[in-house]
């Protein structure tokens, strides 16, 4: 979320889900909403029924396009060129919000300069769109009363992920679609508590509420709160560097909570060899999985239905999680296990309940200090919520005050994906999820009925390509990349354009991450799951 933090200030959805129904123009880019965030898609579809226009920009003909006013099928990895050209057209026609730009933003001239090089003709070549299509989108967005922009991993999972996000933010700042209801820049979070994990400071550079670890004042505050003499300075390592560190011998112990990295990290072979090499692998999880098989110690955890606490949803809403059943066997709450380790290492956290931990979180996190369990018993509260009289924040920046003073344009240059198709690997593979399964499949595949609906992985291949390779619908194919090989069933469909293929990482038998590329965005540390080059062969 570094892209949003550097333009607007906070790495979160600026607006709320319920506002979607009143967004006049909904612009969805890089989000397969009906499958990844179905309930959000209901709001979008209801808005369409009430007269909103829904604009989808996605390389695939995703289901949401059934309700879309227009669908722009730009090429995988061409987002920056695409958005820059749209902004160029908006500025050229004078559709930008001059008043807002003048009063509340910085860097407009640099943006104008950068995007001016992206003519619709030039960008059209990169995006595989006609120049008039780009002009049309610029007109739709530029002349709309308000636009709400929504994106997901299609934007972030690229080596240019941070710049992609910045481009989305640039567009919305340019149009003055910030600081009002039913507008904004809205990343939809994939996992239930990604927002919360970020908010809690499970990141190498920040403490809770994005308080910077580099600031001595912040460290002093936490040193005092925790009774620690000296907290570490300097930035920690991000996930990709952790695995590299193991290979180099700098990292000797890895404590993994609930992440099945063998399945979820790109370039599986690289991940597995790191897990085999590390001196101490601690896995804390609810299931035995492909990652835990390599562990030296496995700590069984309670799952969501067996624990008390809170999750924070994609719209910054802190909501209660409650215990409904007893955990199996000896499994315990995640926090209990970690605190026990701490105690045995000489530091007693002294927690006896989740609420006690939350009280401590509130006391060190100004943006959440107004959120108490008793206030969110029925309905969650959205941060910032600074005291107990505060009713939470539906949309950010309503007074046009940004954490860094003004909203900042961060112009970005387009760069092709780290790996582009060539003679040897002529197809682009992009990845994502399906409605019927979730993430690495550890939960849905163990729930009844799901495997009946979606029993195995399928790679989407365009009919033209399939014909050329003599592949029929339902045939098995081998997928090769520079990193690995897998066998999977083909689904011949025009959901994908010629030259493009699509897979998920839900199934260990055919996990896309065997072949995906572990090149990553240098700022966010996010790997390029959305584009790699592959070759197909009939099995």
């Amino acid at each position, binding site marked *: 979320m570094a892209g949003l933090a550097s333009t607007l200030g906070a790495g979160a959805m600026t607006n709320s889900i319920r506002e979607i129904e009143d967004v006049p123009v909904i612009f969805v880019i890089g989000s397969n909403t009906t499958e990844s965030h179905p309930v959000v898609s209901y709001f979008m579809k209801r808005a369409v029924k009430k007269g909103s226009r829904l604009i989808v920009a996605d390389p695939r003909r995703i289901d949401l396009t059934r309700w879309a006013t227009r669908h722009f099928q730009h090429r995988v990895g061409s987002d920056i060129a695409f958005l820059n050209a749209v902004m160029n057209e908006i500025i050229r026609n004078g559709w930008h919000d001059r008043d807002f730009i003048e009063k509340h933003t910085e860097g407009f001239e640099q943006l104008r300069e950068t995007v001016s090089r992206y003519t619709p003709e030039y960008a059209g070549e990169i995006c595989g769109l006609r120049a008039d299509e780009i002009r049309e989108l610029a007109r739709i967005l530029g002349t709309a009363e308000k636009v709400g922009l929504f994106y997901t991993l299609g934007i972030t999972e690229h080596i240019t992920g941070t710049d992609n996000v910045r481009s989305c933010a640039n567009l919305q700042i340019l149009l003055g679609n910030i600081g009002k209801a039913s507008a904004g820049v809205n990343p939809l979070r994939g*996992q239930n508590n*990604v927002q919360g994990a970020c908010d809690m400071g499970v990141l190498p550079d920040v403490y809770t509420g994005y308080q910077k670890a580099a600031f001595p004042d912040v460290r002093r505050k936490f040193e005092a709160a*925790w009774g620690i003499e000296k907290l*570490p300075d300097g930035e920690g390592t991000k996930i990709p560097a952790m695995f590299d560190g193991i290979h180099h011998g700098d990292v000797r112990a890895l404590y993994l909570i609930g992440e099945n990295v063998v399945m979820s990290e790109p370039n599986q072979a690289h991940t597995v060899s790191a897990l085999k090499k590390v001196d101490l692998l601690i896995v804390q999880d609810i299931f035995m999985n492909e990652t835990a098989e390599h562990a030296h110690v496995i700590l069984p955890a309670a799952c969501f239905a067996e624990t008390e606490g809170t999750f924070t949803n994609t719209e910054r809403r802190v909501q209660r999680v409650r215990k409904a059943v007893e955990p199996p066997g000896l499994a315990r709450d995640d926090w209990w296990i970690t605190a026990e380790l701490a105690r045995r290492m000489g*530091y007693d956290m002294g927690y006896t309940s989740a609420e006690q931990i939350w009280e401590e979180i509130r006391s060190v996190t100004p943006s959440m200090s107004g959120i108490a369990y008793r206030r969110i018993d029925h309905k969650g509260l959205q941060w910032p919520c600074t005291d107990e009289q505060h009713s939470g924040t539906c949309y950010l920046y309503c007074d046009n005050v940004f954490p860094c003073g003004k909203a900042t344009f961060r112009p970005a240059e387009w760069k092709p994906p780290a790996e582009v198709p060539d003679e040897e690997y002529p197809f682009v593979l992009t990845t994502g999820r399906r409605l019927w399964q979730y993430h690495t499949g550890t939960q849905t595949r163990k729930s009844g009925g799901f495997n009946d609906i979606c029993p195995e992985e399928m790679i989407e291949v365009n009919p033209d390509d399939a014909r050329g390779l003599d592949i029929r619908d339902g045939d098995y194919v081998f997928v090769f990349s520079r990193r690995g090989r897998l066998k999977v069933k083909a689904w011949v469909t025009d959901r994908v354009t010629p030259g493009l293929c699509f897979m998920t990482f839900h199934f260990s038998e055919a996990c896309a991450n065997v072949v995906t590329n572990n090149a990553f965005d240098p700022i966010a540390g996010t*790997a390029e799951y959305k584009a790699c080059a592959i070759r197909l062969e009939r099995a």
Partner: protein
Amino acid sequence: MDGRHIQTVDGNTVLNVARQNRIYIPTLCYHPKTRQAGKCRMCVVEVERMPGLQTACSLAAREGMVIHTSTQRVVETRKMIVELLLANGKHNCIACEANGACELQEVAYRLGIEKPSFPIAERDMPVDTSCPMIIRDMNKCIHCYRCVNGCNNIVVNEVLEMGYRGSRMTVVCDTDKPMGESSCVVCGECVQLCPTGALVEKKAMGKGREWDTNQTRTTCPYCGVGCQIRLHVRDNEIIKVTGEENVEPNFGTLCVKGRFGYDFVHSPHRLRKPLLRKNGRLEEVSWDAALDFTAEKLLEIKKTSGPGSIVGIGCARSTNESNYVMMKFMRAVVGTNNVDHCART
């Protein structure tokens, strides 16, 4: 209303006024979410100086209205409607999953109906079990249109329609396909809205009825929308999930994962005991053994190679509280900022 003076805002319906003032008016087709359908006529009331009976769900309250909600005429009419509905379907409560949570059963009970006074019509439509999650028994359908409205206007999946005419009238999926072969995305909104046992959750069959279960409000464990759900629990087992109506962010709606993806909790593959690798094999051990081993080993690595040689990856599915403790552990106890999680997904 019923002799009480009630003030309300302009445009409020008589039904709303009654419900806000705890006056009982039964409805079968009206639901706060799908609103009036004008189908069942259960909500009839008598209004002075207005002819006939009026349906409360569609009647706007006005200054000076005098309303009677339970005159003999009203009650007789409601009784007749319910008796007709009961006679028109296969309403065998004893065997029905919806027993105890059925709105038809509830109104029949409230009106004191023991058995229909009309001859029971022969309805013998095959039960549709083609969907892995939902069972449709159209013999119990009372044609209230809630599911049709919900599917088309609330979740906008546009699968259900009322098909056929007269006595053959029934809800159809797409162009009358079995549900499992239709474009249904199994969100379960129709099941949640159905007032009878015509639509029920397959996996919950025989696992317990409304009165057997405890319900716990919590948050969906799948995607970042954070839908509010209710876990229905019997004997330490989650048997069903429903969406919490009337509250953000989802206002009762769910998707297939949130509604039907709960039984992983009780999977036999869950980890039940700490495991420690001994001689290359993972063996079950006590918490003390597992934690002491881990703590010692971490201390040793910290001492010999420095805190920077230890890294932690947190969990985007675990609670805020657990994530905070993990973050604190890495920074305060290990002494490193090497902590991250998969922020991308």
